[in-house]
């Protein structure tokens, strides 16, 4: 187990270097000279040259990447081109917002997907409704759902503020009011994905012999479903949860933009819009690292849920 973890972590290093290098070179070649972008089209060649020299853009790309990765390892991702703020600082401010929203959404989506698809009676009676919610969650774009929620709860009913963010320090009620709609929006999509994955696996598990054996012991349908079928059907959901948490910004980009939340997703969008490549690179690296780490955690969780799976 420990050797597996160490091996996977060591393997993560070249993966991170390769992917960030790919990001670095594609961003610098596709977007062109950062100095040109920062100073605008009318800038004099002298001014561009001066800026290039100041930031080191006149050096070969490989040197620039070397300098960047050396800094990144020490937690120094440089300064944003647009705000001149420290990138590490900007991201550190955004992560709690995105992380909290994502975790709540995943918790809600997983619980709902697993419970609704496990309850013996509900499984059959609510099958139509669950499928409908699945389809809505997956097919309706996040921004549509978000805007619809804003329309319903903010414009029409006036219960919740439409956009913005309030940290915990502003009070629990204020915080929850701002986070409910983004969480609902984001979890609708996750619910759709988790529910489909879980249901397919559950159907398989329900055919297995030990389910019949559990019934033959005299256990109730609830016990059969929750104690015997659930732990065997939940494995693929764990993988999906791991990948989803790792992606962080992936699902959050649209939701954060719709609800103007100061999270990593929105930071990523504005970085792209402003050609702010230190920020783009830093978030790119964050996503890669996140996915790798969460995959590892998901694999460890596998061994806890299913004793048949062992790493050696």
């Amino acid at each position, binding site marked *: 187990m420990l050797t597996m973890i160490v091996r996977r972590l060591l393997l993560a290093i070249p993966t991170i270097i390769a992917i960030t290098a790919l990001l670095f070179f594609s961003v610098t070649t596709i977007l062109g000279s950062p100095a040109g972008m920062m100073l605008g089209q009318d800038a004099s060649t002298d001014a561009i040259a001066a800026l290039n020299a100041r930031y080191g853009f006149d050096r070969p790309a490989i040197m620039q990447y070397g300098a960047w990765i050396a800094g990144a390892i020490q937690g120094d991702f440089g300064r944003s081109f647009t705000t001149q703020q420290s990138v590490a600082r900007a991201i550190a401010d955004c992560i709690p917002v995105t992380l909290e929203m994502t975790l709540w959404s995943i918790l809600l989506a997983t619980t709902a997907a697993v419970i609704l698809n496990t309850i013996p009676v509900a499984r059959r009676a609510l099958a139509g409704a669950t499928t409908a919610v699945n389809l809505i969650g997956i097919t309706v774009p996040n921004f549509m759902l978000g805007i619809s929620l804003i329309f319903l709860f903010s414009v029409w009913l006036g219960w919740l503020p439409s956009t913005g963010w309030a940290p915990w320090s502003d009070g629990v009620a204020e915080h929850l009011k701002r986070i409910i709609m983004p969480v609902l929006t984001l979890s609708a999509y996750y619910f759709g994905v988790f529910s489909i994955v879980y249901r397919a696996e559950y159907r398989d598990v329900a055919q297995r012999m030990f389910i019949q054996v559990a019934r033959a012991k*005299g256990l109730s349908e609830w016990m059969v479903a929750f104690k015997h079928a659930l732990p065997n059907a939940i494995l693929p959901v764990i993988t999906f949860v791991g990948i989803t948490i790792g992606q962080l910004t992936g699902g959050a980009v649209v939701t954060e933009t719709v609800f103007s939340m100061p999270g990593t997703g929105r930071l990523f969008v504005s970085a792209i819009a402003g050609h702010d490549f230190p920020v783009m690179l830093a978030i790119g690296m964050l996503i890669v690292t996140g996915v790798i780490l969460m995959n590892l955690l998901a694999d460890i969780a596998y061994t806890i849920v299913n004793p048949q799976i062992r790493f050696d």
Partner: protein
Amino acid sequence: MIEPHKLLGVRDLSVRFATEAGPVLAVDRVSFDIARGETLALVGESGSGKSTAALSLMGLLGAAGGATLSGRIDLRLKNGSTHDINRLSARELRRVRGNEMAMIFQDPMSSLNPVYTIESQICEAIILHQKTAWPAARRRALELLHSLGIPNPEKCMTSFPHQLSGGMRQRVMIAVALSCEPRLLIADEPTTALDVTIQAQIIELLKRVQSWTGMAILFITHNLGLVAELGGRVIVMYAGRVVEQGKVAEVFSHPCMPYTQALLRSLPRLRRARAPRQRLQAIPGNVPSAVDRPAGCAFHPRCGFAAKGMCDTRLPALEDCGGGHLAACLRWRDIASGKAA
């Protein structure tokens, strides 16, 4: 109601399934009794309805859905009262399952839940039915594993199913089934998935267990060799119906129904009494599809004695051909006296 010495009385049990190909009569008016401590073997090819009949005794067919049951399944409970399994509520049925009667299944590899230890899977039923606490249930489980000849029971208790061999898993399944001291054990092809040497061990074990506990065993199998080894009584099923029943020794030495005769002829035997170079005789044709059963006797298209205008139109009832040995054949007298062609 059933006679006092009987444990189980099945009367006119029929099971219908609604399938896409139309309604299927998987079990057709089957009746039999099981006395206390008796061994009854239910023999038939796959598709003969023997497993369906067994599952309906446990009330487990409803869970699969799509099945309609009729007839009575009277079971005498430990407290002396008699109940019709077909008319019990889901809650009452759960008190019977695992407690009054238990079942072991064909495939020990998939009969145990891979995520729980052996200990928790044996103790589960004990705690459920006997309302005991964990330490007492654990002691009982250990005792069971020990008596079932499992080496190092302590270690087995904390093992997960995938750490055990097939034979060990079937022993564990027997421990699960015996945990609440049921008076009827239904064994649905318990040795089919095992190696031949392990098969014999499991059969020996079941016979030994029966001698201590005095429980009755309903043994479902397609293997006539096992039936001979088990002894007791045998019921032969064909296409959802009982075609012959009686004491194993009697049925094996004087089979009355041509199907049973054919089954016995298809078995290899050392030191055959007849011609030494005789080939094994396979039964021609296949088991009829459950959707499209032949009229009259379901076996007539494959039967060498079938008479036109008789076997293909009239459904034979079970008749006593001597000493409680029953057979469902219109021509059994002709066949027995050698008059049939």
